[in-house]
């Protein structure tokens, strides 16, 4: 069982992902914004973070900069699970992966609930 912070601004999607991940025996804290996610991580360090890049006010990339600025959170896997197609940030992927530690990219419209759970479990096993 892992502790997951799910940064998902859409309430309906957040509910479905939470239900699905809870059924897969993970504990999930849903956060709608970058600020809420930082506060949640401060309360309980997550094993993995699932991140939408399109957020209100602070973007997912701003979250990553903030999150990685804390030494204790630098090795926590962050999975980009986003509506933004890969082509739109292909030139930034190296920055996201190498500098900001994005561990995987999932295009949300084409990722099933099973696909998300599988990616989370894979990332957790890589860290363990």
């Amino acid at each position, binding site marked *: 069982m892992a502790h997951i912070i799910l940064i998902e601004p859409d309430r309906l999607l957040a509910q*479905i992902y939470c239900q699905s991940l809870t059924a897969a025996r993970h504990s999930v804290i849903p956060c*709608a914004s970058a600020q809420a996610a930082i506060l949640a991580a401060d309360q309980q360090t997550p094993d993995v973070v699932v991140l939408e890049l399109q957020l209100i006010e602070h973007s997912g990339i701003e979250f990553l900069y903030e999150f990685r600025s804390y030494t204790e959170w630098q090795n926590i896997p962050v999975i980009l699970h986003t509506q933004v197609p890969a082509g739109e940030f292909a030139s930034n992927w190296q920055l996201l992966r190498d500098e900001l530690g994005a561990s995987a990219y999932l295009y949300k419209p084409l990722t099933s*609930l099973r696909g998300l759970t599988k990616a989370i479990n894979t990332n957790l096993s890589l860290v363990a």
Partner: protein
Amino acid sequence: MADQANVSPILSQQLLLNVAEQLKLPLLQIARQAEYGRLTNQPDLKTIQATADTALQLLDNYLLGVRLNVSDQQLSIEQVSIASVLYDAAQQLDGFAKSYGVALELNIAGKFGPVMANRQGLQSALVSLGAAMIEALPAQESPDLKIQLATHRCRYGIVAGLYSDVEQLTSKALNQGRRLQAVSRQPLINVSHTSAAGVFVADAILHAMQLKLKTSRHHRLYGLGAVLKPNYQMQLV
């Protein structure tokens, strides 16, 4: 009626991109809800229906906005009771609001005579606006998940709109959003995590009726509303 000099095929293309981007969200919600329902043998058909209905409404309203702006089709301007339009808009948005955990309130206190508008157009604009605001409100981490459909007098006439405690909804944000709608995935970045297509669809419909979408305040709430002209003749009767 639509000012033909301002008709722009580019505007309709921008709106199409915006709406297409927006429609990915309800389709994604339906796909994941259906997947989860299949896995658990307990599909949440009520939420799926509300999501699909709202997506269909957005499409209908988009088509209305584009047709009015790029064709000769005109909506007849008539005397309209704002209270009844707000009531019907609230009815249409009710299921969607419930699925997002947002409380919808009607605030039509005070006497307002009829205004000049097209009933269908005004209602479509308010429903589009409402859907956009409802889905964005929980993403604001707003402590008060409440939207008021309300009307009040202003110096330009009577405003009918939707209001919440999201103070980022400023005229600067709205104007910037109008400029960014074709080039940004989030034209209203401080207000909505989506393309906020409902706001721009409402803008297009109101524009076709020679009405304006404006940011406005209602008591201590912030929102967007249509500025309507009262029917002075009827007020004299």
